[in-house]
């Protein structure tokens, strides 16, 4: 049975939010003047559209990374931001900033991605020995592991006088997004599309290693694909806009509650809802203290917590 309503609703919400995002900001822009005012047109192409696109790409790709991670770990309460992946990427970024500051952004990104891959591998090694009947152990271990890596990053940044950098990476926000400074995010978006091609594989892998083996799935390959996707997306996002916590945790949980875990059906909604939440957070951040801005990551910290609480506490419908 194909349920089209979630797709339509997500699409409609994204259209409206994108429209709002393009016409809100400190610079004046209105639908009537934009077509014959060259300054307004420039504002549109250099700032507003890139910023909107960046929020959409970030939101969709980190929500997809979150759901992949949850299926592979078989635990609802994990995401890259709470399992040390982001912190490991920051350590990599710090290392390359200190040791090879002149490297181009792409090279720095690759170093960050390698570091976060090592970070995920460390996390998987840690949770292998945890008892499977205690699902809360995994996120707790993830938080502690992330905390340790984060502390190491803070220590190194403090010693090298790079605390400011760390601050920029830690709080995801879009005020710095201009044409020419966000295009790496298209790679993250591309990875999310690639993940959709393997949607069935991830769903089967979510049944567990033994079950997927008895269905003839090459579990190791799917695991590797998923882990590499998560690491790349996390580092791409950190390098361009900074960490946006909880999106990868909250969005997949909402969609799973409503539609289940068959990724072939749910992944477009996961991506759309992630994009919508990030864009909404950015819009709220832009207007709440106009003309100043609040980072989108901070806004979603509040928004996401409320949504997540509602999700946990509401009665399940029969």
């Amino acid at each position: 049975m194909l349920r089209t309503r979630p797709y339509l609703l997500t699409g409609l919400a994204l259209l409206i939010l994108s429209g709002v995002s393009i016409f809100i900001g400190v610079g004046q822009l209105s639908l009537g003047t934009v077509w014959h005012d060259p300054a307004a047109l420039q504002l549109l192409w250099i700032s507003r559209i890139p910023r909107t696109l960046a929020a959409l790409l970030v939101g969709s790709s980190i929500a997809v990374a979150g759901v992949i991670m949850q299926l592979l770990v078989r635990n609802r309460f994990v995401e890259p931001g709470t399992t040390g992946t982001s912190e490991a990427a920051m350590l990599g970024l710090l290392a390359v900033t200190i040791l090879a500051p002149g490297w181009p952004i792409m090279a720095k990104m690759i170093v960050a991605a390698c570091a976060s891959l090592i970070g995920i591998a460390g996390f998987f090694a840690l949770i292998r020995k945890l008892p499977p009947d205690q699902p809360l152990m995994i996120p707790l271990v993830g938080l502690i592991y992330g905390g340790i890596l984060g502390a190491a990053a803070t220590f190194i940044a403090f010693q090298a006088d790079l605390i400011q950098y760390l601050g920029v990476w830690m709080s995801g926000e879009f005020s710095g997004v201009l044409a020419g400074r966000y295009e790496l995010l298209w790679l993250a978006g591309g990875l999310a599309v690639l993940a959709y091609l393997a949607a069935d594989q991830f769903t089967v892998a979510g049944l567990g290693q033994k079950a997927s083996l008895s269905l003839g799935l090459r579990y190791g390959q799917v695991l590797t694909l998923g882990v590499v996707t998560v690491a790349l997306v996390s580092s791409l996002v950190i390098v361009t806009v900074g960490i946006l916590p909880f999106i990868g945790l909250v969005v997949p949980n909402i969609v799973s509650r409503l539609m289940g875990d068959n990724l072939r059906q749910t992944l477009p909604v996961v991506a759309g809802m992630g994009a919508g939440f990030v864009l909404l957070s950015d819009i709220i951040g832009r207007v709440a203290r106009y003309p100043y801005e609040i980072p989108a990551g901070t806004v979603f910290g509040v928004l996401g917590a409320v949504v997540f609480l509602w999700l946990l506490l509401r009665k399940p419908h029969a």
Partner: protein
Amino acid sequence: MIDISGVSYAIGKAQILKDVSLHIPCGQITALIGPNGAGKSTLLNLMSGQEPLQTGTVSVDALHIGQTRPRDLALKMAVVAQHVGVASRLRVRDLISFGRWPHNQGRPTAADHTMIAQALDRFDLNALADRFLDEVSGGQRQRAFVAMAYAQDTDWLLLDEPLNNLDLRHASRLMAELHRLAREQDKSIVIVLHDLNYAVAWADHVVAMKNGALAFEGATQKVTNAENLSALYDTDVRLVQTEDEVFVAHHR
């Protein structure tokens, strides 16, 4: 035929299986019985390639476990594991349709849909088809996993304690369904059973394990006698013959 030869298995210092060799016949129901911790599940996991072999060899028809591509093995045998805890929220119908994965790799054909509909029918799951796995009872979930293995449509079907959580009606229906599969479609079925009454009533062949070794094996009527079963479980077991049925009495 499944050919198990010289299989031993250890976890750390604990020897789970000690040099087990046996043949499991085709086209029949083979019950794997024995006390807790006898190594039944381990043997089943080794047969299906879910645990890597340490010593010895296992071959299923002509396929050697450990040297066969996972997909080829998945087209040869389906496995229903014990304790099917699931973290993911799939609808019952979606779960069963993944039984067709080895055949279609996610691109279902009309034949796949027919098979899925059949599986839903046979295991009495039509009313539950659109429910999520975490919203049905343990027994219903168990049936969904058996139906998924059925949809996989393989020559061999391996089930680890599938009667767990099932009520009387569904337990006997499941055994009858497996019996029909063996008779009508020539499927070969290996099933770990705890309730000896089901083993005696439905199995053609019995393999009894004790302390990681083979205790006895053979055609059900020949080997399931009071003497063998009492020794196997270290408990008094009697067989009670009525007009047309045999009961295994052990509960007093």
